[in-house]
């Protein structure tokens, strides 16, 4: 018996979740299908986490239009999802005349009255660690940084609170587009929907091509990153952008909302499932970071990682209704500024759905998401209050990020719940600190197994085959224990 929905969203990245949240405002039966075991596992997982301000719009493009539309959504996101970007501001840095001409063009567009070109001296008052080869900077106070995990999860939580279903481990193998309704095939189940939104990120082009639509092949371009210890907080307080080149925004240096420093990404040819870091890629990022901040403290690195950009030849968002079925919408090539534009993309998808005949009737009541407290961010009074309500707030599970057992329990029980260590990381920061899990991973496995009532074979890092352990000691015949 197939389950029927008004809309099925394929893909639980920031865009899929934003669409889910958007649609959750309306009287609809909506389902989000995600191939992995959690939201935010693809492109959304590894990027700069920057909400680019309007200064950086690419005019005349779909991305530019949707980026612009997105910016007006953030007040609503703050209100309904209790999600608050850190407005740090940004400096675009010029090192020569050509760069300076670019800054002047930004100034000419003049998105914001309080954005301006600064002299090297003024720039270094704001950012003392900025290179002294700086010729000028364009200061935009409106750029912000977010945790891409937390934004994706905020959308997902908001959507789930308002009735959207999330099914994980549900890889969409194909569509049956013959009938009025679309049949969506996954290994475990088949679903039926009037409308399907393909927001499958790195897989969206293949999915579109498979359904018979003409889409140029996807190119995957990798970007590598360094993440620094919170000890380096204050190295830069604003996002530092170089002048963009023909292929990308360039290698940035940015603070993160949690107090780390991020450097990256470079731009190198890769393939869709290759998120490995490479010596050459890391060296490119080193050089780029050092250009902006000559004394960039690489010895404070706690993690290196890479993300993949799903790029199309036109380097623009390709969002269109399928020629093979009027209810199928494809979203392809959602690379930068996909994170920033996500609510704008969701709104546009809503418009397309209306255009295709879906009736969007606003609900009378929307449940607002209230963010679960973060012990680390609470003052001592609040911490005391929390522990008095529930002693689990007094049990520190992750020393580096000051995460408590109460937060672990929340993360395992919320909707959508964490079911992997990386899922816990995305929600509550365990394993994301300087020790990268050396402490919390001592106790968390047992804690999680007890709380979820699962066995050792079900403890996963991220994907289905990413078992943390192979078994227990004393249950294996030791063929190799023979001393000579």
């Amino acid at each position, binding site marked *: 018996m197939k389950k029927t929905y008004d809309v099925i969203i394929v893909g639980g990245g920031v865009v899929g979740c934003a669409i889910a949240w958007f649609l959750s405002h309306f009287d609809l039966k909506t389902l989000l299908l995600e191939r992995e075991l959690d939201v935010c596992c693809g492109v959304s997982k590894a990027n700069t986490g920057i909400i680019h301000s309007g200064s950086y719009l690419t005019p005349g493009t779909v991305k530019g239009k949707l980026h612009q539309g997105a910016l007006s959504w953030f007040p609503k996101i703050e209100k309904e999802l209790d999600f608050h970007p850190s407005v740090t501001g940004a400096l675009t840095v010029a090192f020569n005349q050509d760069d300076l001409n670019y800054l002047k063009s930004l100034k000419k567009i003049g998105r914001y009255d309080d954005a301006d070109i600064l002299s090297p001296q003024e720039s270094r008052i704001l950012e003392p660690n900025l290179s002294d080869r700086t010729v000028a900077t364009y200061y935009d106070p409106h750029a912000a940084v977010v945790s891409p995990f937390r934004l994706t999860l905020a959308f997902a939580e908001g959507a789930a609170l308002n009735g959207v279903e999330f099914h994980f481990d549900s890889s969409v193998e194909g569509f049956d587009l013959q009938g009025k309704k679309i049949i969506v095939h996954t290994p475990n189940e088949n679903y039926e929907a009037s409308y399907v939104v393909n927001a499958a990120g790195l897989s969206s082009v293949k999915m579109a091509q498979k359904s018979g639509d003409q889409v140029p092949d996807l190119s995957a371009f990798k970007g590598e990153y360094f993440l620094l210890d919170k000890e380096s907080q204050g190295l830069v307080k604003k996002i530092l952008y170089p002048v963009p080149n023909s292929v990308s925004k360039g290698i940035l240096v940015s603070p993160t909302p949690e107090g780390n420093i991020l450097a990256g990404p470079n731009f190198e040819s890769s393939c869709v499932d290759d998120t*490995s870091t490479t010596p050459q890629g890391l060296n490119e990022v080193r050089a780029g970071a050092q250009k902006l901040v000559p004394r960039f403290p690489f010895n404070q690195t706690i*993690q290196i990682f890479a993300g993949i950009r799903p790029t199309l030849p036109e380097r623009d968002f390709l969002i269109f209704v399928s020629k093979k079925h009027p209810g199928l919408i494809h979203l392809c090539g959602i690379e930068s500024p996909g994170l920033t534009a996500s609510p704008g993309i969701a709104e546009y998808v809503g418009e397309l759905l209306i255009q295709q005949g879906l009736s969007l009737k606003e609900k009378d009541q929307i449940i607002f998401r209230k963010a679960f407290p973060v012990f680390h961010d609470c003052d001592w009074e609040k911490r005391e209050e929390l*522990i008095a309500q529930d002693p689990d707030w*007094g049990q*520190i599970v992750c020393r580096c990020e000051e995460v408590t057992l109460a937060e672990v329990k929340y993360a395992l029980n919320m909707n959508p719940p964490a079911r992997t260590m990386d899922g816990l990381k995305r929600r509550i920061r365990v394993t994301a600190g300087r020790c990268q899990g*050396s402490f919390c991973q001592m106790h968390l496995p047992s804690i999680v197994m007890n709380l979820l009532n699962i066995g050792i074979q079900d403890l996963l890092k991220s994907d289905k085959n990413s078992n943390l*352990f*192979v078994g227990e*000691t004393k249950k294996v015949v*030791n063929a190799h224990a023979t001393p000579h």
Partner: protein
Amino acid sequence: MPHRIDCDVVVIGGGPAGMASALSAWNHGARKIFILERNDYLGGILNQCIHPGFGLQVFGEELTGPEYAARYIDQLAKTSIEVMTETTVLDLTTNKKITAVNPKGVWEFYSESVILSMGCREKTRGMIFIPGFRPAGIYTAGLAQYLVNIEGYLPGKKVVILGSGDIGLIMARRLTLEGVKVEAVVEVRPSLSGLIRNYVQCLLDFELPLLLSHTVTNIFGKERVEGVEISRVDQSWQPIPRTERLLNCDTLLLSVGLLPENELSRKAGVSLCHFSHGPFVDENFSTDLDGIYACGNVASVFDLVDYVTFVSQKAGQSAAENRVKKPIKYQLNPGSGVGLVIPQRVRQVDDGWLFIRPDQSFRDGKVQFITQGKVFDQKRVAVCRPSEMVRYDLKNIHWPEEGGEIIVEIVGSSIEGI
């Protein structure tokens, strides 16, 4: 309102350093003493070090880690030192105010003396920039040791260990005894990092290969480790092109270095030393802040728990007595051949020790003490290695009359290979 406790001594960390310093403070007259421990048991790292090698100097016996810990836990029970477990210290101020949390609430401690004994943590993959994927199956050796020994979880079936320090060697044997295939122990240096005894009893006994002058240059496997690439390295530890080789495995264990855990020390504004990565301490293990002491691995990674006990006893005594300190007479710095010296500050030389860690293995070595460019004392060492600190009684060194900077160097023939 937070719980408020006024006391004589607070010890942060209930491992070997914390226990020994608390007991020493008690034995020197302090009475209101608290040990704050984040786990729900005392003993710290000793609990997972189930192998022998502890206590030869302190007890004249060779004990395993848990047995050594038991001796101190027993002694603690005979005092009225208060132990608060499951209690994590989150803040320490310059004025020694401690704020901690546990399931019973928030606790503020106002103490005459504070002893820092938080131990150390392990260097991780990101810190040494190993490129590749980030699959499940990458563990630091100490974490793996905890999981295997305390929880009974096996990290994998086929392991490559990076680092031939003692933790790596010990885990090679431990995993082999649990039926895991250890493919190789890979070491970036041209010589063994750990003790010869461990090389023989952990690697040779089980015919496990040791690859010197090699390092891991890539990690394969998207979900779980599928293999690692190793490469030969040159004298500057840089991979040599075209020497890459693939080792199949499902687990990579990293035994690549320990870092003293000084987050609280930083919060308090204690001055930290760049070569020991812990606070600057004097011969009584007093930091540069009045009333704050540091002992054990938080001050500098010690290899012998016996040394941890000795220095912690000094710290405990100092904390109990809280005497006015004489001015610093000598500032010690490591020179050629020396990785670190501790204490780095010496006020008086009638008591206490100097610990020196060589930065490579030497034969026919001479430890030289230099002031103003002149060697004022030297001592022979037949063999010394990075894995074993050299220890001298301060009173056995012929210190110069005039105070100032002292450089400690080691000259000798480098040992290559084992």
